[in-house]
């Protein structure tokens, strides 16, 4: 497996680079494309800084308002006009990146949007536009935000840019990463790299504080949550593990508070969703410093205390707990072994979040770099490194957040690349045919941690066709997964005996709802036993069907070796196995397989003896060897069917 696989050319020393001497300003930018706010930063005189708009604001609200009579309006103005134009103003559009109309985001409460279509792989909003309206995708809306940031940077640097690093939540899956990269291209940016947000924060933090040790970055933004465990040593930023939830953030606090207000006074429900959420958000922000706030809502005076807010959002905050514990476990660490916890993201300003983090990690978190800016600052540092000022001492080693795999017979997932593998990475695995004369393979690429395909996210489906008819198990399908430095996957498949090939740049097929993904992320632990049962059932079924098919074939050819009674006995046991396959009990299937093995023992022996006799008669030593090998295989198979059988399908390359 080593070597050869990816040999293309030696990386030469003649890299084209325009080094940026110290004391100069880099023309490469770092962008934090956030759910609620976005920022752009550059490195000036060796230090990263966020760029401000004419009014002195670094934060650009991630809001885009589409109009019938002009180009879209982006940022603070769009946000200010949002209540008046709820349908045409897209806010928190990041939540829809890489998602389809069937995903749960589109059916949440307090969503004012009009969706153009129920079908297709990508969400489409129906908004105002010239000639009565237009449809836009989240990618296009994100591109508008990126264009505004790009314009800000071009004005500051007085000319064209040298490329951009755009940050993404570490837990973004392949579809979400692709969508972000597409948005960058659509905005006319050269996307040098997609960088994970917690890694960007660690980069800014580590370089600024000259920190060494192992840190957890707890990043709770407007709509996404990430936890990354990193080791910082001598300029190396090595991500040990990562975890998260791409649908959990400060937005959810606003929703919880809105629901609380509705509960306090039913009249509140009459307020349009957008306005209600804005009110909730304002109250939440005031409660960061005040213990009790009052406001005029729907003509009533309503009061909310910090305690009430804390109680309402506690269940949301607690969803971060299992995610953090798993990340620590994946890194092989305990909370006590950490050197610090770094807070990132605007939602970590909420006192209840800080308290929970302290409780969870048993230490007060660090937050002395502005949690709103630190991601953009780190992205600027990385952009500077990539575009022209490579520093020998700085090295970022990031990981893939979710396992990547293929669907096997019976809907079982075979993981090809495991979560938390350092990227770029690759893996190759060999599979074989299940049925005789099978002339094609259906390849279904999925992402997630669960054992069965219906509980992972479907990324792509493709086919490898034109394989000449062969006996089951003869074809050898070699599948290669490659994940690049942006965390984006490419899959190639090749049938070894014929050399037939196919490959895809994985584009999403959206097999899963957001709800299912959330479940998948949070409670894969809880479902472990159920998963295992499902997997064992699927494996037992495949095994049983293979044995039944082999038996049917053998009976068709050599049925004459059996008496009528013997034949009836075998048919009876085989029928029993078929009945068990239709059931849901893997143990029942295993028992019947054993019974069938026993019932067919004499038949198998007679066939073997006859083969050997024929072979010896024909003096074909070669065939004798083959037959003996086959017999050994049969005995081995019996033993394996009896014990719980490890790894029947895949041909692992390394472990």
């Amino acid at each position, binding site marked *: 497996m*080593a070597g050869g696989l990816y040999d293309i050319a*030696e990386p030469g020393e003649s*890299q084209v680079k325009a080094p940026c001497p110290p004391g100069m300003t880099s023309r490469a930018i770092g962008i934090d494309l956030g759910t609620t706010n976005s920022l752009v930063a550059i490195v000036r005189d060796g230090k990263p800084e966020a760029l401000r708009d004419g009014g002195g604001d670094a934060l650009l609200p991630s809001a885009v308002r589409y109009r019938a009579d002009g180009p879209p309006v982006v940022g603070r103005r769009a946000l200010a006009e949002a209540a008046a134009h709820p349908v045409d103003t897209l806010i928190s559009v990041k939540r829809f990146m890489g998602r389809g109309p069937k995903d749960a985001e589109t059916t949440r409460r307090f969503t004012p949007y009009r969706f153009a279509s129920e079908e297709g792989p990508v969400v489409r909003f129906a908004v105002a536009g010239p000639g009565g309206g237009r449809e836009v995708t989240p990618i296009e809306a994100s591109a508008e935000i990126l264009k505004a940031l790009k314009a800000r940077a071009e004005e500051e640097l007085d000319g064209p840019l040298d490329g951009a690093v755009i940050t993404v939540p570490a837990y973004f899956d392949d579809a979400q990463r692709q969508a972000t990269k597409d948005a960058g291209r659509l905005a006319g940016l050269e996307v040098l790299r997609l960088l994970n947000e917690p890694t960007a924060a660690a980069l800014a933090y580590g370089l600024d504080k000259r920190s060494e040790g192992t840190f957890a970055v707890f990043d709770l933004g407007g709509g996404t949550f990430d936890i990354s465990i990193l080791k910082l040593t001598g300029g190396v930023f090595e991500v040990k593990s990562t975890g998260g939830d791409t649908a959990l953030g400060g937005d959810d606090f606003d929703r919880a508070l809105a629901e609380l207000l509705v509960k306090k006074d039913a009249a509140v429900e009459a307020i349009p969703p957008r306005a209600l959420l804005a009110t909730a958000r304002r109250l939440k922000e005031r409660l960061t410093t005040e213990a009790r706030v009052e406001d005029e809502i729907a003509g009533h005076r309503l009061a909310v205390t910090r305690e009430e807010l804390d109680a309402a959002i506690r269940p949301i905050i607690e969803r971060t707990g299992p995610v953090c514990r798993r990340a620590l476990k994946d890194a092989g660490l305990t909370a006590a072994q950490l050197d610090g916890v770094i807070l990132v993201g605007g939602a970590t300003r909420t006192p209840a979040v800080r308290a929970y983090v302290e409780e969870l990690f048993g230490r007060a978190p660090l937050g002395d770099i502005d949690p709103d800016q630190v991601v953009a600052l780190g992205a600027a540092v990385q952009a500077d490194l990539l575009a022209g000022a490579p520093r020998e001492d700085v090295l970022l080693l990031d990981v893939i957040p979710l396992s990547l795999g293929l669907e096997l017979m019976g809907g079982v997932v075979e993981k090809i690349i495991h979560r938390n593998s350092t990227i770029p*990475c690759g893996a190759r695995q060999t599979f074989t045919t299940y049925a005789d004369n099978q002339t094609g393979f259906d390849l279904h690429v999925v992402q997630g941690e669960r054992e069965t395909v219906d509980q992972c996210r479907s990324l792509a489906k493709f086919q490898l066709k034109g394989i000449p008819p062969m006996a089951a198990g003869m074809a050898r399908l070699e599948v290669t997964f490659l994940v690049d430095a942006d965390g984006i996957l490419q899959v190639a498949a090749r049938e070894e005996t014929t050399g037939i090939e196919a490959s895809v740049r994985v584009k999403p097929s959206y097999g899963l709802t957001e709800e299912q993904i959330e479940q998948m992320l949070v409670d894969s632990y809880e479902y*472990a036993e159920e998963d295992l049962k499902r997997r064992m059932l699927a494996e037992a079924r495949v095994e049983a069907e293979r044995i039944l098919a082999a038996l049917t074939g053998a009976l068709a050819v050599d049925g004459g070796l059996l008496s009528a009674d013997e034949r009836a006995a075998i048919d009876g046991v085989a029928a029993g196995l078929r009945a068990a396959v239709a059931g849901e009990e893997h143990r029942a299937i295993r028992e019947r397989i054993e019974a069938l093995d026993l019932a067919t023992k004499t038949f198998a022996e007679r066939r073997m003896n006859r083969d050997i006799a024929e072979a010896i008669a024909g003096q074909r030593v070669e065939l004798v060897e083959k037959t003996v090998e086959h017999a050994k295989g049969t005995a081995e198979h019996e033993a394996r069917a009896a014990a*719980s059988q490890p790894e029947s399908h895949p041909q692992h390359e390394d472990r």
Partner: protein
Amino acid sequence: MDMKKTYFDVLGIERVYDVDRAELEKRYLDLSRQLHPDRFARASAKEKLASVAKTTELNDAYRVLKDDLKRAGYLLKLAGFDLGDDRTAPKVDAMTLMQIMELNEELAEARAERDSARVSALAGRVRAAREEAWGVVEGALREGGAEAMRRAAQAMMLMRYHDRFLEQVDAYEGATAEGVH
């Protein structure tokens, strides 16, 4: 087996089971600094591709070699025993398989009865057996030679059954722990 570069070649270390961890990490980081795609962001498309390819190979090699179990499995693969391939994986003898089968049955019973004490007792036995098998693997890999390699491969195959068993124990314990919550 192919004659291509091994993971040991990729990292430039000697092909033995006992590797010097600090040396391995140092080589990995040194090579990463030279080859990582971050250093080739503005290079030609060809060089970019080459950098990704080389770094992929390096990351794959390091992932396998830094882990004792994976390194052992890889050494056996180089010696002709690919444990993931039915055609080259050695067989575990029938007696041992019978014992595992019995343990599996006992575990299934204990799980069905929610007898946690019995589950952890069984797990203890299997963990001890796994430790013993691992001792055989390490000993045989240090010894070297075709016969020792076969012995190591057999013991590693046996460990797969142990791992499968312990996975089921984990699933049971995970499920019961969540239940208490």
